[in-house]
């Protein structure tokens, strides 16, 4: 079986080893780099299937590594960040990272993010990448018919609300930044004030969640964006 290769660019040895252990015991092959430059060269020489990139690298700014990789490759990249660096997370996502994970993270979370990122990149690569449906617990979205049902009942969403939900569903499991969503739904010249997005999300939540303060399907990552539960 062809194991997928994950490259981790992480300067802290303990965390690097921790990642290596988790990945190897879950069927991935691993490559380790302790700084940005060696990470870049490993990336070009080995073409990994996914990259875990720590933003706080000693030699080169993690963001720059990200940009450089994105300059020649679409490989899925998950950035590892410390808890309070929201702006960095958003910047990384806007610069092309696929997802982020915050230190300290559990193995479950890491594996889940890796799976999602790999799945989405596989979909993009294969031409049959468009899904027909999203289904998770009681929520079902039929993209062809533009129909949303919750426990069998039709949910009426406005145009914008439907666009929002389907965008999130098509990227289920992956975090989408406010900016990204704004540009996708309202166009590249949209006002950067995301109030309109927030209000729409609040309305959507009232339609599909039992309790808008205990969301089941759409999670808010404060300061960053939204993430929909994987089906």
């Amino acid at each position, binding site marked *: 079986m062809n194991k997928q290769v994950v490259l981790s660019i992480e300067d802290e040895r303990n965390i690097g080893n921790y990642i290596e252990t988790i990945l190897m015991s879950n069927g991935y092959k691993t490559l380790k780099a302790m700084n940005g430059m060696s990470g870049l060269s490993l990336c070009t020489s080995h073409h990994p299937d996914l990259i875990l990139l720590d933003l706080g690298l000693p030699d080169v700014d993690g963001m720059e590594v990200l940009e450089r990789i994105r300059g020649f490759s679409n490989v899925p990249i998950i950035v590892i960040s410390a808890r309070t660096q*929201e702006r960095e997370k958003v910047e990384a996502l806007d610069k092309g990272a696929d997802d982020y994970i915050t230190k300290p993270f559990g193995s479950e979370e890491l594996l889940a993010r890796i799976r999602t990122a790999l799945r989405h990149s596989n979909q993009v690569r294969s031409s049959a990448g468009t899904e027909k449906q999203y289904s998770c617990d009681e929520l079902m979205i039929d993209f062809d018919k533009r129909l949303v049902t919750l426990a069998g009942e039709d949910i009426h969403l406005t145009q914008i609300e439907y666009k929002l939900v389907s965008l999130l569903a098509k990227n289920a499991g992956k975090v989408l930044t406010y900016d990204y969503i704004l540009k996708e739904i309202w166009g590249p010249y949209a006002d950067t004030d995301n*109030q309109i997005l927030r209000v729409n999300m609040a309305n959507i939540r009232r339609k599909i969640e039992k*309790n808008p*303060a205990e969301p089941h399907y759409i*999670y*808010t990552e*404060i300061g960053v964006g939204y993430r929909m539960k994987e089906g």
Partner: protein
Amino acid sequence: MKTAKKEPMALQTLLMNILVTTVLMVIATIAAQAFFHYSRNSTSVAMIYVLTVMLIARYTTGYVPGIFASLVGVVCVNYVFTYPYMDLNFTLDGYPVTFVGMMVVSGVTSGLTTRTKYQSEMLREREKMLMEAEKETMRANLLRAVSHDLRTPLTSIIGMAQTYQENYALFTEEEKLEMVRGIREDADWLLNMVENLLSVTRIRMGDTRVNTSPELLEEVVAGAVQRLHKRLPEAVVHVRVPDEVLMVPMDPVLISQVIINLLENSVYHSGSTEPIDLIVEKHPDGVEFHIRDYGKGIPSDRLNTIFDGGGIEVNKSGDSHKGMGIGLTICKTIVAAHRGEIWVLNRDKGAEFVFTLPIEGELSEKKHTEQKPEGEYKE
């Protein structure tokens, strides 16, 4: 009656004074004309002018405009509205009285206005000093709580790790797992404390204010509960927010921290596994967050000091690292920086923590000047 220092009147104030005086006098005269036209009663006209003088004294700075208005008022009444009309005649009885009356009214009102302005200046100064002092005390308390609250779990971790290392062969698998679980728990707790401390650095040190942005209430609440569940997956929290979509200005990371601290506090200290209620209510000037547990409540001697870092308790079961110290102090700091209030009370079963966040940017003055008792409690 204290008089304020005579400050050179700024050009702006002067212009304001002239404007206010002129406008009010014109209105008064027009009103008086109309009044007089319909009723031919000059006493009421005089009353209009007295009222105007009072208003002018109230809304201008200093004594001059009021006195000037009194003069003009008396002249107008005399000249225009009393017999002989359109002529100045000060010999009739009552004029000196009217004039003096108006002057007194104007003087007293001006005096009152000046005094009030002065007093509110003083109050603001005092408030600032109080805040500084409060900050210092809080910082001192914080440092004290930090050294205790951080050192204790660390000691425990080192102890357990050492025991594990040295007596590796002697323990059963279960015991080993138990030790590692204990290490994990203490480490999680430490992390929470560190995050709390990091939160404090987000508060701009200069004026204890925070960078607020309008945030969706339900999202912040949901996010906080989510993060709580990462660390305490078995904690059950029932959340309720108002139906209407509410945007509240706040620093979401800090307020999440407050919610998490209060929830964790309930989990660890209520001594009960019953679900905790997190209810948010909308009030006319802000939102109120209620975190209610159904456990054993707070000992009444601690109610007043619980937010001041005095709450470092050695739990009877020996879990001394789970002191309430830093968490609650930080909650208070954060809530205060948002111009909100935080307090706790005991219910018949369990304790209820409440904190408020104003919806307008600044909390209205009336709430901030009264000292809200920090530990009101019901027996």
